[in-house]
């Protein structure tokens, strides 16, 4: 059910976006997110954009993954930047 690949918004008209997923164009409704702009990356579920992908968050996850993979022992005990 869930499509995990972020899609890029290439056009917006009347709350509908044209999105590009790996070169394939589809439509997605923007009724469920705020302030979407052309150029944003979104996650699309059943024809609706449900989240903008946060560049900062993407880099944080990667940093976390690399840190987890590289530093086997010396990891700080705070669960990483996203821990709550």
């Amino acid at each position, binding site marked *: *059910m*869930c499509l*995990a*690949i*972020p899609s*890029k918004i290439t056009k917006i008209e009347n709350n509908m976006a044209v999105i590009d997923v*790996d070169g394939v164009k589809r439509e997605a*409704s923007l*009724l*469920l*997110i*705020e302030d979407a702009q052309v150029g944003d*990356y979104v*996650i699309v*579920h*059943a*024809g*609706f954009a*449900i*989240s903008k*992908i*946060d*560049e900062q*968050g*993407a*880099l*944080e*996850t*990667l940093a*976390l*993954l*690399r840190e*987890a*993979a*590289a530093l*086997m022992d010396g990891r700080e005990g705070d*669960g*990483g*930047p*996203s*821990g*709550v």
Partner: protein
Amino acid sequence: MSIKHIEEYRDSTLARQLSEKIRRLSRRKIRLMEVCGTHTVSIFRSGIRSLLPETISLLSGPGCPVCVTDQAEIDAFIELARQKDVIVTTFGDLMRVPGSASSLQRERAEGRDIRMVYSTMDAVGLAQQNPGRHVVFLGVGFETTAPTIAAAILTAAGLKLENFSVISAHKVVPPALEALMTVDGARIDGFILPGHVSVIIGLKAYRPFFERHRMPCVVAGFEPGDILQAVAMLVEQFETGRPRLENAYPRAVAQEGNLKAQQVLTQVFQIGDACWRGIGRIPDSGLQIRASYAAYDAGRRFALHLPEPKTPRGCACGEILTGQKTPPECALYKKVCTPIDPVGPCMVSSEGTCAAYYRYHYDELEAQS
């Protein structure tokens, strides 16, 4: 730049390094449940199980929307398709699920008008194009799908459409986690929480559950790197005896979730009890259409009279969805029940655990190792 670094999350070197880290961390046997059906598929497709040490068991939970749909709900869907001048619209996976006496696929072969749609908005469009007929959308799914259905109802209301309605069999995830804690034989040590349900409801929605049970919980994305990272975090919590509620998917999931989607959802739906296949009635685990949108509630518009549902005999979907059994432990698996001739929904849905075991020959791999 790649699509938001997607290749990097799929990087096999990274996956190997993460799996090595997990091997080093993991000492005691641990049973982790991935609640979401999309995780189940991703885990099988990417071969993650083979990267994990023997100490770690992955169980598939009740997060395949079609699999947890109660037999009575499937029967109601079929009955709706038999109503005069009705067009039934649905996402694909429901078509082949056996009801007590028929399936949507069989009904369609017998001439009922049942159509697969990509989005609920397509169903609204069909209603506009067919003013003389009534379009019903079969609403199954969790907090990810429910706002899209709510948005369709609001759109239909805005257009003053009188020939569109939804039957809501929607369910919400946190009460199901609660219910799983009471299932004997599930023995869960940690949860891999669903990525896109969490996009909508936010990390905060799990906080009460976490506080009550102090159970390791990590929200995960869907790439192999995401899932392995979540497993590593869970194992670390488990081994150090410090359970936490953590987010391994911060590029999409925020503490508060998607507030706009939550607002659309609560405008149309209210919380009510729901019946889950194999688990039974769970209080406050379903979404019902509010009285103010009764005109769009197919359950209210059509007075359906249904006989007692008959669940398929011998099907262990219920035990599989709650982590008590694996598919090869079902007597019908592969012998009577196959993807071509499925007995239960777990073999029908592309996200079903039985279908995943079958497709990826997991039982054979398990036997060889």
